[in-house]
């Protein structure tokens, strides 16, 4: 296991244990101030996990809004609704063996669903594409640096290796790969993207009958690729075997802040404005509810 993987695992387990322990303490502690500080631990650990999942903007927003705003509000509520001189602020819970059993059953059901019933990857990194009489299996690998190749998900640190393995190999001599970095406004229309031939390297031997191209120069935040088989004689064979024909587009993420900002300013602009109106309304409403009654 490479050193970066060890560090990633260590960070995940440390913050996961912190989050889980904090959640247990929020649920179990009889002192409401302790519950509030345990909630602080949960929120910080969640921010760290977002950073681990490369959602750096979400991590910063989590710290700013949840820890800086919501948690302070909750502490205010605790202090305002109890006398501070009370050492043991009441945080009674109803005797809830039934609730405990219900939550255990819920947890068990969730674990069963997560681990055993749903195949999350769903063959998403190996896609059978059919186009122009050709059938091919598209593969996407992540260059590992050490062991060479590894199956990857949606995020890639270094290079992306695209493999096209034709199901019927008659006359196929190679693969041509193109990449594009679509603008947000054209995201759903691959025809308008600026496709360029990818700089490909000599293919490593991946598996029998597989043509492989290593994409370099993936410096942009989001890169999509498409590939097609090339037949003998230099003639390009058939249609592109990625966009439009098959469902998943593989993207390269190097931090998600810019794409998220573009999405907020583009497809989600209306929802963003509606949320701003809602925040204004809740501000006015909270001030109205919490105002001091004027006795007449």
């Amino acid at each position: 296991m490479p050193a970066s993987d060890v560090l990633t695992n260590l960070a995940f387990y440390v913050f996961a244990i912190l989050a889980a322990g904090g959640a247990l303490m929020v649920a179990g502690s009889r002192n409401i101030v302790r519950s509030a500080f345990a909630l602080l631990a949960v929120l910080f650990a969640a921010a760290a996990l977002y950073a681990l999942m490369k959602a750096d903007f979400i991590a910063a927003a989590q710290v700013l809004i949840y820890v800086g705003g919501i948690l302070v509000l909750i502490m205010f509520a605790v202090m305002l609704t109890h006398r501070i001189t009370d050492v043991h602020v009441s945080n009674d819970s109803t005797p809830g063996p039934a609730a405990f059993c219900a939550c255990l059953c819920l947890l068990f059901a969730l674990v069963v669903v997560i681990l055993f019933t749903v195949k999350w990857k769903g063959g998403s990194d190996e896609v059978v594409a059919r186009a122009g009489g050709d059938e091919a299996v598209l593969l996407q690998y992540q260059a590992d640096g050490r062991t060479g190749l590894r199956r990857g998900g949606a995020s890639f640190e270094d290079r992306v290796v695209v493999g096209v393995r034709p199901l019927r190999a008659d006359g196929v001599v190679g693969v041509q790969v193109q990449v594009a970095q679509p603008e947000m406004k054209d995201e759903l229309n691959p025809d308008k993207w600026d496709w360029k031939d990818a700089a490909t390297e000599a293919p490593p031997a991946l598996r029998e009958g597989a043509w492989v191209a290593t994409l370099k120069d993936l410096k942009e935040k989001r890169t999509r690729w498409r590939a097609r088989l090339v037949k003998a004689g230099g003639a390009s064979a058939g249609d592109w075997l990625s966009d439009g024909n098959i469902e998943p587009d593989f993207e390269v993420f190097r931090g998600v802040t810019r794409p998220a900002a573009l999405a907020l300013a583009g497809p989600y602009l209306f929802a963003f404005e509606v949320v701003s109106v809602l925040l204004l309304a809740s501000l006015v409403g909270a001030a109205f509810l919490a105002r001091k009654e004027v006795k007449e």
Partner: protein
Amino acid sequence: MIFTRAPLENMLLLSAFIFCCGVYTVLTRKNAVSILMGVELVLNAANINFVAFSQYTPTGGVHGNVFVVFVVLLAAAEAAVALAIIIGIYQNFGRVDVDQADQMKD
């Protein structure tokens, strides 16, 4: 269950645990502020799921992240209004136990 082998499953298990803790808190607590903390736990579990699906599935793209932004904003609005209501209940009843506040009008 090594994290880097199956990151999505690990994140989902963690968020399932946090979700169940939040549900238990909501179900058992009498104090309205504690119930609000349980709701925050549930929302955080949902957020972790959003980001995990956004990051670890090929089709996730950026949309999960954007949804988390909206969920955080709505949680902030909800917390502000709920705490205003809690303070209102405290002014009327002197306590914030939800099973005591059983009248629409005092």
